[in-house]
């Protein structure tokens, strides 16, 4: 993204677009990623309430998926899951699958 000149940005240092940090993908910070075991999940949503990065996507009051674009792999969800439905796996396993970075 080419940086804008002084004439093209809002004055006052204001950021007018709400929540545009979503465009910044912190997912590449990860060394491990959480993996969901659907069979064990009871949809208690504890992972969701404890996620520091808003990276647990909940739909219709149920766990849907991880937001791998932003998940930093901290592992809190895995540690806190009462049914051990989330385990952490090395990111390298997926890097190759996803076109090797």
């Amino acid at each position: 993204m080419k940086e804008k000149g002084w004439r093209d940005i809002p004055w006052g240092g204001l950021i007018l677009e709400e929540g545009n940090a979503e465009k910044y993908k912190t997912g590449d910070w990860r060394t491990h990623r959480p993996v969901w075991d659907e069979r064990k999940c009871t949809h208690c949503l504890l992972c969701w309430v404890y996620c520091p990065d808003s990276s647990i996507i909940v739909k219709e009051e149920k766990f849907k998926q991880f937001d791998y674009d932003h998940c930093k792999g901290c592992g809190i969800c895995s540690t806190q899951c009462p049914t051990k439905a989330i385990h952490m796996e090395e990111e390298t396993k997926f890097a190759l699958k996803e076109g090797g970075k």
Partner: protein
Amino acid sequence: MPSLKVLSRKKELLTGGHRLCAGCGASIIVRQVLMAAEDPVVMSSATGCLEVATTIYPFTAWRIPWIHCAFENSASTLSGVEAAYRSLKRQGKIDRTIKFIAFGGDGGTYDIGLQALSGVLERGHNLLYICYDNQAYMNCLSTSSLIMTEDGVKRITEVKEGDEVYAFDQKTYQLVLKKCIGIFDNGIKDVYELTTLHHSIKATANHPFLILKRNGRGKKNNFVWQTISEMKTGDEIVVLKNLDEGESFKFDFNKVKKGDYKVNRLNEINLPEYSSPDLMKYLGIYVGDGWTRNGKGEVGFALPENSRAREILVDLHSKIFGGKIRTDEMYVSINSVNLARFIDGLDFGSGAKNKTIPSWVFTLAKEEKESFVQGLMLSDGYKIDNSSRYVSASYELLKRLRLLLQTMGIRVGRIHQQRKEKGTKCVDRELLRDSEYGYICFSQRDEWNTEKYPSQYKYKNFLIDNKYFEIEKVRDIKLVGPEPTLDLRVEGEHNFIADGIVVHNTGIQRSSATPEGAATTTSPVGKAIPEGKQRPRKDLTRIVAAHDAPYVAQANPAYYNDLIKKVQKALSTEGPTFINVLSPCPRGWRYDPSLSIQIAKLAVLTGVWPLYEVEKGQYRITYRPKKRRPLREWLESQGRFRHLLRPENKGIVERLEKQVEENEKKLLALAGETSLSV
């Protein structure tokens, strides 16, 4: 309070893509707080982790109106927003219900932000202030520091109130003795290691040292106190060069006699009443090569045949103690219960890695100290040109030896550390296994001809003609990491000598560890001494409650139910409300990020962070653990406390436990309860 399922239907108001550390407690707290709010929220944030990481231009992670102004004014900025809201509402220009939440870290709230918070509380604005708390700060020395006292060198942890310690008289620049008037724990702090050519010490960044300030040609130089953070390499600090002449040490030993309990046979032996150069040389050899087996009543030396040390030792032994000696190819040994117990009681330690120099050696006359050093050299030392080198596996021994040599006016370099493999030769023996050891080099000082060029020498070393002290240039200041620290207060001169360096009194401050009721007089200011910039760690929750704020609480993100309920209560209360939330920090507290919630839970279960609320002055404990867990679990969970787990710091841990218990008792009393656990 609505269930998680219901809450999950709300829009996420803090997006991913912010740059807080993985596992950071702050964003967990923010998310839970915003989940709890039912009306639209306008938020202000003080400068800090949360603010910086969530709004790096041009990105913002906030889906709510949000303002950051400065570090200390989150409360007052938001009070302006709230006043605008009230004004516009009154004028009929706005009709929505909007809630106002101010966030501040413990820095921006406890210290610099306290005034703004207090003003808001007093004025009664309708807003909620949330403090996310991760740590406080004060000045102190590492617990490994060695203090020069009248009884010799003592670890700072061994110094007691009433002990006489050596200090630097700031008017006469001479050595004086002053009474220690207090010791305080300060918990784990980040310490820096400051090294000069011959000295090193570990202290926090704000610990003051005595620096020579050169005022230029024709002007008098003077000493000023400066903290490590204000110092740079090249600064000249005051260090100890020499102590007063000591005297022989009187031993207090009761010999066992034949006929005493279990004493059937006894090798008669003379035990000296006072120390002497000969005895000290003997003991010097003992430190390097000797051991005692107290149970067997045996004293032994690993001195092979033909080693020069053996001859001298045998000779000395006959002179001092008399009695029979057994020798074989490798060893010299003496069977004497009395000798074994005598030497054992002299506190030289046992085992190669644990040998040390007890404090009484530091009080000896110079001749005796010199003999002791000679003895050391005979066993584990050797000369290289004009310099002597002493080797030992015990770091503590080297540290103390260095200080001892310095009190004799001998110049010593820094402690070098090395690793050698099994089989290599060390002095004249082969190593039996891999070993790590250290060594120091030392030599006699050159005498400077101060009469010939007085001003030049004086320029080089301002205290050159001082008997006890001299100036050394700071060579390096580097961050070492978190270590347990202590404060020491000395009356009168307000300084003392730690690790051979003149350091300022540490101001009396409480840490969360210091027991209630400890003396808290501020140190009076002397001629050129700035006051330490410290203040006690405050119980902020109670300070806010003392403002009669209608709702005040302490919360924890691990207990989200409790937190959300409290936020909802606060938001529906008219007037200024406050919640202090523990915010685990993987970086600062040193633990694996996946454990943030677990550790937050431990804080509650061990009593470190009780959960309570104060509603219109009424205290109520909102969570009771089934059984309080020992504080040790809290300490073991984080790297910042690791050093407290060493055996020698047991006393500090006990004091911390006591502090937690007392805080608990206080809270229970306020809440009108008797037990915290269910």
